C-alpha cells in the first residue's frame, strides 16, 4: 500500500503512518509509529536496495528512541541530553509542523488562482508607462571616479619612483661583493645597506637581502642559520664553494 515514490522523505512517511492511526496528532503513539516505520523500511528495502540514507538514519533514530521508551530511564542523565519522552515530543512537534505546512500548501493551491479562476484584463490598453530614471550619483561619486581615473592613468609616477626600492639584484650584487669578508657566523642584518629615514626603502632592502641570501645559499656560496625560531636573528657565513 505504501509506495516509496510517493513520499517526500522519512518525515513524510511518518506523517502518513501517523494519519493512518486515525487519532489526533497530539495523541499519537510514538512507540507504535516507530514500529510501523521500521516495518515500512524493512519492507521497502527488499525492493529498493538503494533506499536513501535519510530513511535509514530515521530508522536508526527511531529504533534508538524505541529502546529508550521501553527501558526504564536510567538515573538522571546529563542535563543536555533530552529524555526519551522529550525526544518523542520533539518528533511529534516535527510531525505537527510538517502537517501544518502541507495543509497550508493545499489551502494555497486551492485558492482562486490567477489565470485559472480569476482573470486579468484580456485586452490591456496602452498604458504608457513612462519611467523616469533617477540616478543615484552624487557629485562626490563623480569626482572620486575622476580622481581614481587620473591616479590610475598617471603610471608615469611609477617609472620615477620604482627605482627607489632596493631590488633583489642590488642585494645580490652587494652580498656577492661581501662574500669573502664573512668567514665566521655573523648576523645577516649587519650586511644591510643603510637608508636612514626611508623606512620603505629599508623594508625593501631587508626583503631583497634575505632573498639574495637564500639564492646564494642555494648556490652553495653562503650558509644560513637561524637558531631561535621565527623572528630570531639569521646568521650567515661564507659557503664551501665560495668564489
Amino acid at each position, binding site marked *: 500500500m505504501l509506495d516509496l515514490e510517493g513520499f*517526500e*522523505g*522519512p*518525515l*513524510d512517511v511518518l506523517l502518513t503512518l501517523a494519519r493512518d492511526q486515525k487519532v489526533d496528532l497530539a495523541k499519537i503513539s510514538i512507540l507504535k509509529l516507530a514500529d510501523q516505520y521500521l516495518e515500512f523500511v524493512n519492507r521497502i528495502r527488499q525492493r529498493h536496495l538503494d533506499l536513501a540514507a*535519510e530513511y535509514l538514519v*530515521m530508522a536508526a533514530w527511531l529504533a534508538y528512541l524505541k529502546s529508550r521508551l521501553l527501558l526504564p530511564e536510567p538515573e538522571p542523565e546529563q542535563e543536555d541530553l*533530552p529524555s526519551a519522552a*522529550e525526544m518523542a*515530543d*520533539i*518528533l511529534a*512537534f*516535527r510531525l*505537527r*509542523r*510538517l502537517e*501544518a*505546512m*502541507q495543509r*497550508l*500548501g*493545499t*489551502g*494555497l*493551491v486551492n*485558492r*482562486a*488562482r*490567477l*489565470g*485559472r*479562476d*480569476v*482573470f*486579468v*484584463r*484580456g485586452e*490591456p*490598453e*496602452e*498604458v504608457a508607462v513612462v519611467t523616469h530614471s533617477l540616478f543615484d550619483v552624487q557629485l562626490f561619486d563623480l569626482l572620486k571616479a575622476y580622481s581614481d581615473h587620473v591616479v590610475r592613468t598617471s603610471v608615469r609616477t611609477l617609472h620615477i619612483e620604482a627605482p627607489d626600492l632596493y631590488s633583489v639584484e642590488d642585494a645580490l650584487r652587494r652580498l656577492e661583493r661581501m662574500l669573502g669578508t664573512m668567514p665566521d657566523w655573523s648576523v645577516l642584518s649587519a650586511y644591510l645597506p643603510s637608508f636612514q629615514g626611508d623606512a620603505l626603502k629599508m623594508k625593501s632592502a631587508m626583503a631583497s637581502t634575505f632573498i639574495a641570501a637564500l639564492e646564494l645559499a642555494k648556490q652553495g656560496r653562503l650558509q644560513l642559520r637561524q637558531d631561535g625560531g621565527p623572528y630570531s636573528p639569521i646568521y650567515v657565513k661564507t659557503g664551501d664553494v665560495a668564489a
Partner: protein
Amino acid sequence: MTDSFDPEHLRIIEAVLFASAQPLDERDLADKLPADSDVGVVLAELQRQYGGRGVNLVRREHKWAFRTAPDLAGRLTIEQTQTRRLSRAAIEVLAIIAYNQPITRAEIEEVRGVALSKGTLDLLFEAGWIRPRGRRRSPGKPLQWGTSDGFLDHFGLESLEDLPNLKELKAAGLLDTRPAADAYGNRAVDGLSPVDIDDVAEDEPELDLLDDDDGLSLAE
C-alpha cells in the same frame, strides 16, 4: 471613506486600472491626480462600487488591479493560461516560504526533514512567486527567500497578513523553523516563535541585486 472627491478623479483612476493588466502602484496612481487629492479615498470608493460586480478592484499590498470576481471561477469559459501542475514538494516548499519568510534553504529542509531537490526553488522563482530576501546575518550568510508581489496576485491575497491561519499557527508555535529540538525546547522559554512577519522588513537588509560594478547591465 466618506471624504469627498472629484468624480472625474474616479473616472481617471478607473480607466487607468482597467486598461492595465498588471497591478499598479498606489503612488503612481496618485501622480495621476492633483497633488491635494487623496487617491486612497478614490480607490476605496472604486472598490466599493465594484464590490458586487463581475469584475472587482483588488489590492495587492500597495498595488491595485481589476480582476474577475473569484466566485465566477467555474462559470467563465475563458482561455486559461497554462498553469503547470505543481508537485507536492513545490506546494509544500511554497507554503513553508510564505508562512516563514524570510527563510533559508537549510530551514526549509529542516521543516521537511529531507533535502530540497534541485529544481524546486528554481521553479517557484521562475513562476515569479518567490524572490531572494537578503542574507541572514549568521555564519555563512545564507541567502533567504520570501514571496514576491506575483505570489499575492496569483493567489489572490491582499497582503502577507492575509495568509490564512497565520495567527493560529504562530500561536501554536508551528511557525518556527529552527531545528526541532531547539524549537521545541525554547518554546517554553520564548513563548512565541522568532519569525515575526511584521518585523521582517526591519530586521533584514534586502538583497541588493544591483550591487555590483555594472549595475546597469541592461543598458550595456
